[in-house]
């Protein structure tokens, strides 16, 4: 399978997400219908989903979804896994025969890091490091997702076919996010499909980041290796750095990615002005410039964000305890004829829904 190593990946796309803020679970059919209704935003070169709360019996273990080009890659990778992790359970990822062509070997492993390998790093840091090693050092192996009680499912194809291929109707999740891809310059590669997932974060993205060059170099300063050359990978690492490692509140991290204009900051009340000015000054290299709408899934919620001048579409809606976000209103109306509320989030203002807390930011 061809891994992309040339230039940066450029793509248009459709995104969609559903969260139940009370943690009630729904199966995968709804999200498939939502993303399928925006069929023309994809071109069949990539589709994918992430689901949260799907492995309750193994929720203490990191659920590694892996793909291998061949059995040799699998052997080498399993050797590596065995050396660094205790494998509680493993098996094939269930799929069915559909129009999806040439699937790689798809396996899942529920693992925990070996105590003696942890050294002084936290479990999460260790897992990230090992995942990066697999992706960059073990040829033909790629980690689709590595979080707890969640997983990513992706492939080359239209998203509805990908959902069918992975039998998503058999999974029940409190958060679903989905992506249909329209790449413009890369042959289809399964790893290049979205969502991009790292630990509990999974991200789907529509857009192209003009600041990619500096975002990447900034992340490299903190030890991240951007191997996939996709904007989405960079977004995921930025969230990981600012939210998990720097412990910034999520809405503040969003202000670093899509900050208000200086004109606006100059007019803010003194205290707020100081905070915003400092964020922009210190996190200037995290500004994600260029058109994007993203949906981020995480352990207990979902976040959607547009670039600072809203160059990509994003619509949000609520119905009872459900929060839905989508590239187009059509993606929402397909599964919910009469939302309680439907709106277009402001540029650079996040929509955040949290399980147990409801919709805390409306954008």
């Amino acid at each position, binding site marked *: 399978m061809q891994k992309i190593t040339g230039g940066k990946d450029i793509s248009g796309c459709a995104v969609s997400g559903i969260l139940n803020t009370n943690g009630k679970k729904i199966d995968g059919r709804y999200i498939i219908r939502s993303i399928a209704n925006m069929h023309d935003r994809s071109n069949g070169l990539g589709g994918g989903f992430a689901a949260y709360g799907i492995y309750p019996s193994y929720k203490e273990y990191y659920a590694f979804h892996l793909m291998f080009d061949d059995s040799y890659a699998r052997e080498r990778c399993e050797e590596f896994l065995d050396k660094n992790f205790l494998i509680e359970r493993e098996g094939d990822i269930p799929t069915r025969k559909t129009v999806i062509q040439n699937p790689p070997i798809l396996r899942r492993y529920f693992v925990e890091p070996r105590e003696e390998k942890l050294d002084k790093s936290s479990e999460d840091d260790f897992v990230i490091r090992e995942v990066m090693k697999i992706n960059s050092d073990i040829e033909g192996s790629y980690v689709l997702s590595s979080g707890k009680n969640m997983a990513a499912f992706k492939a080359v194809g239209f998203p509805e076919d990908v959902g069918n291929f992975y039998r998503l109707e058999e999974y029940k999740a409190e958060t679903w996010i989905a992506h249909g891809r329209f790449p413009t310059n890369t042959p289809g590669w399964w790893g290049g499909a979205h969502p991009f997932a790292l630990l509990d974060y999974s991200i789907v993205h529509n857009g192209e980041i003009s600041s990619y060059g*500096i975002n990447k170099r900034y992340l490299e300063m903190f030890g991240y290796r951007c191997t996939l050359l996709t904007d989405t990978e960079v977004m995921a690492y930025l969230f990981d750095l600012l939210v998990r490692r720097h412990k910034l509140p999520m809405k503040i991290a969003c202000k670093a990615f899509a900050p208000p204009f200086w004109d606006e900051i100059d007019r803010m009340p003194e205290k707020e002005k100081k905070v915003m000015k400092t964020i922009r000054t210190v996190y200037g290299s995290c500004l994600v410039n260029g058109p994007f709408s993203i949906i981020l899934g995480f352990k207990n919620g979902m976040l959607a964000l547009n670039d600072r001048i809203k160059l990509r579409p994003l619509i949000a809606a609520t119905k009872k305890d459900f929060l839905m976000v989508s590239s187009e209103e059509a993606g929402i109306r397909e599964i919910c004829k009469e939302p309680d509320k439907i709106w277009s989030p402001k540029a650079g203002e996040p929509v955040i829904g949290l399980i147990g807390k409801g919709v805390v930011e409306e954008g």
Partner: protein
Amino acid sequence: MLSLCKGEFSVERDDDRCIRCLVCVRQCPSDVHKYDEEEDRIYSDESECVGCQRCATLCPTDAITIRYKPMEMKENANWKTYHLTNIYKQAETGGILLTGMGNDKPYPIYWDHILLNASQVTNPSIDPLREPMELRTYLGRKPDLLDIEDGDELILKTEISPQLKLELPVLFSAMSYGSISLNAVKSLERAATIAGTYYNTGEGGLHKDLHKYGKNTIVQCASGRFGVSPDYLNAGAAVEIKIGQGAKPGIGGHLPGEKVLEEISETRMIVEGTDALSPAPHHDIYSIEDLRQLIFALKETIAYEKPVGVKIAAVHNSAAISSGMARAGADFIALDGVRGGTGAAPLVTRDNVGIPIELALASIDQRLREEGIRNNASLIIAGGIRSSSDIIKAIALGADAVYIGTAALVALGCHLCQKCYTGKCAWGIATQDPYLTKRLNPEIGTRRLVNLLNAWSNEMKELIGGMGINAIESLRGNRLQLRGVGLTDTEYKILGILPAGE
């Protein structure tokens, strides 16, 4: 002794056009033009002409043409006119040859081998006439992370180091009062204030009339310590320790006694008419740990309220030196390349010492990133920046801002005759002669400089908008927006850019 050097220029006068207004006679500080009343004719002594174009520019009937006409020797690939005339001059004087302005030798100019990207289809370009486009830049040390507490309101728990706020990523380079006239300094100061940026005093101290306008001033502390006092250090918005200068790495500043008149002597605290020769090194800095001590001595003096930076010339191991400076407490690093200008420097040093700023910048930015200390210090680069596109390329390579010196002087009227060290600048810039300095009206000078900065701002906005970027920080260090043409593999590697087509 008979001089074997001839003048470098020919003066052609169209006598049909000449109205004998004598502007040329009055304007030429080198006394090239002489009027013979009896004959009613103007004669020109070409041997004294420096090619400053003052007479040609001001001649109301356009009667004068100044042409570059070096001595034409028998062709010789090794012995160029440059070498012969230098030897003649040295055989006549026994001295080190002086020159002014930056290196004019044809070393590669990498800006001219770098092209910029633009958005097409997949990513919309942004129109600066219709959308906000931000050039604001903050210079100074930044922490790696912020501690912010989320509650009813956000509480910022990290106090960050003092920062310089620039409305555009361009500052006026260090040019001392002494090397340039007070009117030139005033023009720079006022333009910096209007444009929301800074000018730099150079190592000549701060004229007493300018102390109260320190808000947009970077005060320099060089090895000669001319004019340095607690008052002076506190008068500016930032302090810059000058270790070296691109036009003369390895040696100290140089102000010929001809230019040390009363007010200069008072400002610099030196005797009138003496050469002001700064020591080559600071005599209290013989190592990086000594530099650290001076940085903190200065920070103590200004109560840690303003940034303290360090300026060095770009030399072979700038990257390692910069790493040391960033760790020694410098809030910004100013880096001056081999094409950097000067008021006076030994010709042999100017033409042969240092490295191109593009390569130095690329390697320093990369080195600081590899060491994870790029946030420790901002990077200001200098040395031959000619246009807004040079600035955009510099920022994409990794600079936070650029210093412009020569370009600012050109805006004030400089024609690059390279004779600053003589003190006879016909444009009233690099001179202290009252007859000449009054030619530069600071009001008009200010307007010309502000116009230049506005024009460049608008051009920079067009360029970054074209890339689909609406804030300058998304361009900084974003080398993917650059492509090279006609470079070697090694140069691509050092610059960290791809060849066009890749």
